[in-house]
């Protein structure tokens, strides 16, 4: 306990007396943590954009005019049971007509033609959303599998637009998949570069103390007695750098939220504020691990003998 107290105190004293060298290390750790925070936000923006694109994709099943309600319900229930289906939106014939009239309210000839027909020429439709874009294929297969609900004389289905949208959906699927992989690769690469730079900076700060480490060992200090304060310094770098990073990102995300929400498709500030504890935990643990592991590895070579 006494040893721990001395080690912690030693770490703080070293940090304060390190002066500009300590703050240089904090700066470099802050840059690394800023990269990590930026990547968290970038992933959120990417995820939200991809989600919005995904939401726009669906398969529409156009129903026959005058199709019986119980048959439609039967088809809807069968689709609901498919594990790939996330949501089914049923638009009735009447609702479809109302929407059509609303959409073309300024288009007088069309409305007039519709009035002259006298009856509703539009059938209802089912908008089907899959959980993943890649799953539309499965749903389409179900619809063309020869189910009596879909094919044959009792079928209520007039047309399924999957075949038309197939190419677009597949391309979109490939783009989203590629964007996610690229995002991950870029993230991993940037984090790796930052970690290497941080490690080398901390190694440099310990290199300055190389002779002192030798002297400490010569006067009989144990390995932990020498290493401990440096590890505590690493923890201090991590904590201060976390505070610096989170404080800098507060106004930065506020600006982005005010001015770039439309472009990014996500209010970054709202995301930042609502996830602040998650981000704090991630950034703080990254900072502390980075500081401690770098210090541990850097001091190791000077501790032998």
């Amino acid at each position, binding site marked *: 306990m*006494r*040893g721990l107290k*001395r080690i912690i105190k030693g770490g703080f004293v*070293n940090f304060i*007396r*390190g002066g500009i060298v300590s703050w240089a290390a904090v700066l470099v750790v802050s840059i690394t943590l800023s990269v990590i925070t930026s990547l968290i936000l970038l992933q959120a923006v990417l995820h939200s954009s991809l989600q919005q694109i995904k939401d726009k994709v669906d398969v529409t099943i156009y129903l026959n005019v005058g199709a019986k309600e119980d048959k439609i319900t039967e088809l809807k229930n069968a689709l609901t049971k498919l594990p790939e289906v996330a949501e089914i939106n049923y638009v009735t014939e009447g609702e479809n007509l109302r929407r059509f009239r609303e959409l073309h309210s300024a288009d007088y000839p069309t409305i007039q033609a519709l009035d002259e027909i006298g009856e509703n020429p539009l059938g209802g439709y089912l908008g089907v959303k899959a959980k993943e874009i890649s799953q539309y294929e499965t749903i389409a297969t179900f619809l063309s599998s020869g189910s009596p609900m879909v094919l044959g004389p009792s079928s209520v289905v007039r047309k399924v637009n999957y075949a038309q949208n197939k190419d677009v959906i597949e391309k979109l699927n490939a783009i989203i998949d590629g964007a996610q992989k690229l995002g991950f690769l870029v993230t991993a690469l940037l984090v790796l570069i930052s970690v290497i730079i941080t490690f080398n900076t901390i190694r440099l700060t310990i290199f300055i*103390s190389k*002779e*002192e480490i*030798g*002297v*400490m*060992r*010569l*006067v*009989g*200090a*144990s*390995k932990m*007695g020498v290493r401990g304060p440096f590890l505590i310094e690493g923890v201090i770098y991590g904590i201060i750098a976390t505070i610096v990073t989170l404080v800098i990102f507060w106004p930065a995300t506020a600006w982005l939220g005010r001015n770039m929400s439309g472009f990014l498709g996500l209010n970054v500030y709202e995301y930042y504020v609502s996830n602040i504890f998650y981000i704090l935990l991630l950034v703080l643990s990254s900072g502390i691990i980075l500081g401690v592991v770098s210090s541990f590895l850097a001091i190791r070579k000077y501790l*032998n*003998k």
Partner: protein
Amino acid sequence: MIYFNNVSKIYGQDGVALQDVNFTVGAGEFVSIVGHSGAGKTTLVKMILAEDNPTDGTVFFESINVHKLKNNDLTKLRRRIGVVFQDFKLLSSKTAYENIAFAMEAVGKTDGEIISDVPHVLELVDLGHKAHHFPNQMSGGEQQRLAIARAIINQPELIIADEPTGNLDPINTHEIVQILKKINDLGTTVILTTHNRGVVDSVSKRVITLEKGKVVRDDKEGRYAI
């Protein structure tokens, strides 16, 4: 207390630092090891502290072969030896008080012992007024007195002073030698390496003379004889 048995140290092909060195240092002795620069004095000190391994031979501290020690045991051994270097080897980021406190912390002394002993030993080497100065704010003589205070604070069985007066003027040199003699009078074994004739002659104790890594003389009440 210290036993050198046929110790040789060769760096590379031709760098003979020590060759077949044999001698014994008894408890309570004051031994001066003299020789020109490059005679092997510092290598010899490094052998005792196990800072370097011999190419051949063994070095014993009492019954312990120092070069067979594991890291933890080596740390324990070093706590029994106080070392004073020519270049002082003080912790530059710590004050005079903290330099001594650190050596006490290393051997597990309590805060109470540190608070009571450090000012006392600083007074002993006449540095009471410099307790909160950093080494770079002190003169060479003061730094060396601080190094001695650090070396004696844990009451070691052996003090090794490796060219302790090499960087000092005659007045400071005299002071340092007097302090070392006093430490020896109180019962601590002292090994002093030097190439300063005045120092050796003023001590008038056992002198081992090294030349090109070999022991060429070992006089009981010797004088500087190179």
